[in-house]
């Protein structure tokens, strides 16, 4: 304990605090042979004993906030402590914005704990100030830009409060994240959510224009980094969503299916940006895309598709060799029947 590297000394146990002497601690009841028992640290056992004591009497007071905070810091997955804390906050009419500030700290410390984000959601239902929350979330992405709970919370905020000013910054926000990491699939997913799902605003029914903008965006991204499954999935996603056949993309996709030396000279074509000079080509995702186009055409084109699948299995995507063999069998069967 005297080592200079140890952090703050352990706080006193509730059993040793005179102001808690009126509470009767209640031990955890467990029958004789516990399964997977946890060898609790003294400080956790002490806090949990007092928590069971408090829950038994139903006390909801300021000191309950102190007690539940200690439990949460020792075990953030203790959902009952969170639940009781929330009920206490409401019962004593605590300042929920203070609580939110405490949560700012806990959210970063326990980024991966569901309860931290769920509690925030409950607070926000009362406080109803989502705009600053978006700023806070952006800050947590500096720790982990793919955290599932955080993204889910952001999507909930946007969809639940759903006002134009809240949505207005989302595309720039996604853009910033994709500039930092073009392979961040969570950001791509969020772009889809914003452009085609909950984020669709009144007056944006001009889907033609939006679709064109998104196609240019994703094609530009692919041209910068062709071997990026997230971008190809986004391209397929927006085509499917808008009922556009993949064949409309053939002029764009084809150059990506050829080796580097077969690339034609530069043509500035915004609709069909060519692969960057240092791209690793042919790109497996493009070959797969082109094969899907041929497969959909059927007939003689099916043979072109099977050639492409063969090249995936033998060269460009050997890890999935058996899968491509399966596609070849299915494709050939389709044209025989």
């Amino acid at each position: 304990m005297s080592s200079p590297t140890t952090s703050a000394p352990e706080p006193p146990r509730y059993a040793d605090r005179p102001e808690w002497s009126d509470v009767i601690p209640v031990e955890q009841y467990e029958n004789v042979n516990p399964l997977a028992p946890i060898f609790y640290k003294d400080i956790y056992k002490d806090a949990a004993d007092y928590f069971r004591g408090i829950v038994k009497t139903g006390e909801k007071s300021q000191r309950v906030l102190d007690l539940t905070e200690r439990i949460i810091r020792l075990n953030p997955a203790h959902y009952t402590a969170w639940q009781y804390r929330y009920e206490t906050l409401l019962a004593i009419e605590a300042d929920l914005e203070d609580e939110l500030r405490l949560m700012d700290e806990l959210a970063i410390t326990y980024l991966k704990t569901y309860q931290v984000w769920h509690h925030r959601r409950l607070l926000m239902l009362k406080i109803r100030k989502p705009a600053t929350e978006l700023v806070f979330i952006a800050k947590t992405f500096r720790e982990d830009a793919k955290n599932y709970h955080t993204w889910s919370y952001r999507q909930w905020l946007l969809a639940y409060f759903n006002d134009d000013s809240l949505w207005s910054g989302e595309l720039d926000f996604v853009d910033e994240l994709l500039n930092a990491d073009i392979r961040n699939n969570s950001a791509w997913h969020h772009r889809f959510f914003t452009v085609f799902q909950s984020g669709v605003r009144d007056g944006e029914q001009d889907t033609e224009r939006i679709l064109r903008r998104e196609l240019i965006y994703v094609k530009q991204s692919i041209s910068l980094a062709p071997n990026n499954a997230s971008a190809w999935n986004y391209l397929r996603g927006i085509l499917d969503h808008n009922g556009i056949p993949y064949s409309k993309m053939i002029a764009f996709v084809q150059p990506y299916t050829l080796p580097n030396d077969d690339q034609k000279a530069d043509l500035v074509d915004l609709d069909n940006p060519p692969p960057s000079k240092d791209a690793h080509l042919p790109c497996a995702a493009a070959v797969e895309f082109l094969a899907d186009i041929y497969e959909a055409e059927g007939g003689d084109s099916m043979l072109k598709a099977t050639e492409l699948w063969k090249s995936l299995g033998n060269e460009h995507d050997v890890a999935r060799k058996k899968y491509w063999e399966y596609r070849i069998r299915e494709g050939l069967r389709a044209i025989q029947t």
Partner: protein
Amino acid sequence: MSSTISDIYNFDLPQLTRIAHAGHVKRCLSGLPDSQVDVDSGRMALAFYCIGSLDLLKMVQDKISSSDRESWREWIWEQQTSGKYGAGFRPGPFMSTGPSSTSTYTDYDTPHIIMTYTALLTLAILRDDFSRLDKRGMLVLLKSCQREDGSFSTVPGSVSGETDLRTLYCAFVISHLLNDWSGINVDRALSFIASCRSYEGGYGQTTYCEANGGTTYIAMAAIHLAPVPSVPLTPSEKRKTIEWAIHKQLQSGGFCGRTNKVADACYCFWIGGSLKILGAASFIANCQFKFGGIAKAPGEHPDPYHTYLSLAALSMFPLDDAHSTSFASSWVFEPLDPLINARQETAEWARKYIAIR
């Protein structure tokens, strides 16, 4: 790049250290250090991963003493509680102040849907006869936990429950095992599943979320468990989901849970694809921890969750004959029921003895 790929195909599997993996989960069953205190509100699930691993390794009936099995069963039954929201199993005694059989639960010690699912499977592994099961109470619990949008919260009646596809899946397995779907509004639940589908072809944990391996497995299993003869997926949707899953396999042979993420052993189960077709067995081999137990990735510490799911993946997709290895027998497992996630014999036991209660 392609040379490393062919290495995977010729990979000579080392021994699967069955005894060491069993040792890892048995140690966890006898006690966990305080550093794992966050398991306190999920002990039943941990017990399932441990005892389930022993079951997949076929060690429960002959390698565990009958008195141990008896005392494990007693501990599990002690967690069955009933009260105003119905009956089910709680995660463990972390909020318990007395025997559960003598009084009803409070709002702070209710049963939990995910824990009820894991308790039923664990009791089936231990070949319990389920004579103590409160079936009617369980149907009431399911009803109490389903929300307007069709999803289920983990615990009834409070603000603290998580509601996502995992809980819905557990509610479906419980109904399937009870052979009684009257506790669930199935149509609403199916439309919740549909709302979790992403443009990538996989499913997110809840509405609007990014596609993820765990929840995609769960969505598929739930759709197949549903009793109504509906076909919620069109052939092209189905194909898109398969393609999404297939593309989660990485060069290492392992699987990742989301597009452009790193591999993790549990996704061999969740994404599955199939080890037979795709050769992911070598990835699991590389994740073996030398002191027993299987970790999420090579070089990391093992835990019962990743141990169970890796063994379950091997049970679901037996190795290809092409993997001739001197240690072949250590990789042989009995078939797994992929819908409820238990060894087939255990699943049959569960269906037979839970439904008659």
